[in-house]
């Protein structure tokens, strides 16, 4: 089970040598790392969406169309 979680974590990262030590980690640690990475990605995407939305209120009206075209092609 822990090995499966280690493989799952490796699959989310750049391939390459190393990270064999992940096989030695217990299930809880691997769950934490997998979830930590997934949550961090999710939080970052949400923060980015919120920032883009919020920043529109400060963009001069005349530029908003061009701005949206770049941000939402």
């Amino acid at each position, binding site marked *: 089970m822990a090995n499966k979680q280690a493989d799952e974590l490796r699959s*989310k*990262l*750049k391939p*390459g040598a*190393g*990270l064999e*030590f*992940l096989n030695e*980690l*217990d299930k*809880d*640690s691997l769950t*934490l*790392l997998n979830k*930590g*990475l997934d*949550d*961090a*990605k999710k*939080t*970052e*995407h949400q*923060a*980015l969406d*919120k*920032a*883009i939305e*919020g*920043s529109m209120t*400060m*963009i*001069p009206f005349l*530029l908003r169309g*061009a*701005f949206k075209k*770049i*941000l939402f*092609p």
Partner: protein
Amino acid sequence: MSQLSTRAEIIKLARLLKLKEAQLASLEKYEVAQLRDLRERMSAALYDSSRPHLVRVAAATKLIPVALIAAIGEKFYGPLLCARVTGLMSPERAAEVAGKLPATFLADLSIELDPRSAKEVIALLPASLVVTVAKEMLKRREYITMARFVDVLSDKVIRAVMDVIKDDRALLEIAFFVESADRLDALIGMIPEERLRSVIVTAASDENNLWPEALSMMTQVGDKLRGKMGDITASLSDEQLSTVIAAVERGGMWGAWVGVLSAMSVESQRRVLSLADVESPEALSALATAAKEHGLWNQLLPLLKFMNDAPRKQLEDFFERVKSTVKNMG
């Protein structure tokens, strides 16, 4: 190596994943290089997942004035997203934006930034701005973050920052966390001799318990600097030197210590090896074992002549015994 360097990697990984340091305690037993590799790959995975959006944000910033980018960045994007966008903007424009942001925000941003991804931007920042942000980071004891910037800052800017680091302990910790051996060599090479002496005295004083960090630093620099720091160490008072030897013994760092010893001047070697603390049977045994384990016999052997008769005899007997064991095995 030191627990502190492992802890530094765990802190950086915890920050990246927005976890608490204690949650990653199970990683403490692993090598620093393994933890660094894991952190760097996780950081790349995170960055890659947002990259397409961040590229568009960076492109959109071309439409608005620098002051507005700074205001929007501070109000809506926050330090993490601004750090991510920094390396995707033109370096000139990103540097201009940095000039419009408050030092506290830039310090927050620096914690999130991978300095290698923004090398060109950092190179364009005026030394005065870097010093202002460094002062803010010193206030927060952000030594790990400061060390990451040593890899990318110019020597001139590093000198300006060092001028404002008045605390020897802070300077030692920053130097300890520097990842590149070449840059560490350059950094220590820039420290005036008197200041280097002061840092070593601080590390050697028992209450700070920083000798493992100082010794780890000495092992990572070139022979010349190692010898210079070794000579300074050898010139400490008997009491300070005894504290150093006790710390070496406590931390099982005899291998590193032999490396420093061998780089010292002959006078320094004589002084250190004639010290009673080095010559206790336990210390001698640990020293000999470390020399054997680390393949440092050839470095230690010529130094035996500086020891008093009894301890020298003990070490020579030890070497003879090992030599005959090896011979019998062969």
